[in-house]
């Protein structure tokens, strides 16, 4: 099984299935391709018909799109319980992942993922602020309704945490102040072994992708 990913510093979509597989201790081969300045991933056409990362390749078949990858992995490794076992919790987990998958455009545009950088206060527009309020509301309801068994959204680690991990790094990069319960959740995600490993690798990357760097002063 191969996972094709982009730059660890920038590719929030790549981070999701990578963190999922690593945190669940599922073995895979990592193939990293790098973005050019326009956000294109060189060489990805060999792996995926969509021209985008991430792609999971199982027995030569490509599975693209992070949410489809997560569903497929969950189905193949039922013993890992990557979705919450409780039916109500599972419905909520699927809803909030799909919401992340198609939404939060303002947050994504104004606060692109950039793990190694710090831009405190940048990117806070009325629209991105609304997105952040909704994220905090999601985290708070998951934690209060289903979080009793641990520090994560549904207690123990699930796809939902992998899905929101890039948002956690964004809130750190842009130094967004959060209510204590939301900050405690962020700290729990930042403490996950797989998240630490991904972020360490991101900080060591030196490629500069202009498209993802609206607030950088160098290279301009």
């Amino acid at each position, binding site marked *: 099984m191969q996972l094709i990913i982009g730059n660890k510093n920038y590719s929030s979509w790549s981070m999701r299935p990578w963190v999922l597989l690593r945190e669940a201790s599922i073995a895979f081969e990592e193939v990293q391709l790098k973005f050019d300045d326009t956000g294109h991933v060189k060489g990805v056409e060999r792996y995926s*018909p*969509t021209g985008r990362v991430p792609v999971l390749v*199982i*027995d030569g*078949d*490509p*599975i*693209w*799109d*992070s*949410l*489809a*990858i997560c*569903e*497929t992995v969950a*189905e*193949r490794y039922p013993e890992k319980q990557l979705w919450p076992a409780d*039916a*109500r919790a599972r*419905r*909520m987990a*699927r*809803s909030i*992942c*799909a*919401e992340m*998958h*198609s939404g939060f455009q303002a947050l994504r545009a104004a606060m692109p993922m950039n793990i190694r950088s710090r831009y405190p206060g940048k990117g806070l527009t009325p629209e991105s602020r609304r997105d952040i309020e*909704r994220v905090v*509301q*999601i985290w708070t*309801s998951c934690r209060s309704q289903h979080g009793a068994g641990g520090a994560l959204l549904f207690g123990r680690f699930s796809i939902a945490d992998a899905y929101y991990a890039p948002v956690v790094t964004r809130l750190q990069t842009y130094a967004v102040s959060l209510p204590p319960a939301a900050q405690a959740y962020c700290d729990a995600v930042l403490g996950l072994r797989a998240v630490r490993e991904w972020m360490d690798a991101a900080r060591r990357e030196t490629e500069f992708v202009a498209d993802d760097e609206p607030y950088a002063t160098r290279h301009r």
Partner: protein
Amino acid sequence: MTSPMQLVIGNKNYSSWSLRPWIALKVLGVPFDEQRIVLRRAETKAEILRYSPAGRVPILRHGDTVVWESLAILEYLAERHAQLWPKDRAQRARARAIAAEMHSGFSQLREHMSMNVRRRYPGKGRTPEVLADIARISAIWAEATGPFLFGEFGAADAMYAPVVLRFRTYAVEGPNRRYMDAMLALPAMRDWIEASEREPESIAELDLYE
């Protein structure tokens, strides 16, 4: 579960997201109560928030729980109706990839060829980016094993049903005609089209090319 499901949707003429779970439920033959909320009115947001904190349609309510987002609703239905995804494991993974691609992508097509079931805008909206989206959708449909994407109607088809209606409105030629015909021949699809034509409300900013 004895309580019926309730599906909260928007205007049938405009709400492409609403059509997806609606048509899946109809084709499955699962009874449900339909609750329609007229979009883009002063009271719309508050009405939707009564059903879901995410504030968007569609929303499925079943017993004491709520599922929102069309793809999450389809996965929820597939837990009870496995036929929504292909039986073969590799095909199922592919169907999920295609469905998720629709869920997060094709933003240019959505913007410039927004769903408007009862209108006809032949030739409109064809920006280079929209044409690229159409080319990608054509490639996906070209691999349909027939009559639907993976033989019988499934969740992937539910995700692409609104695209068929868009191509009808904007007179997009080229993509798999047999697939479009199969979709348009579904009794549920005909019901949706008919209801769209009867809807009294118009939303001026969604009637893009008048």
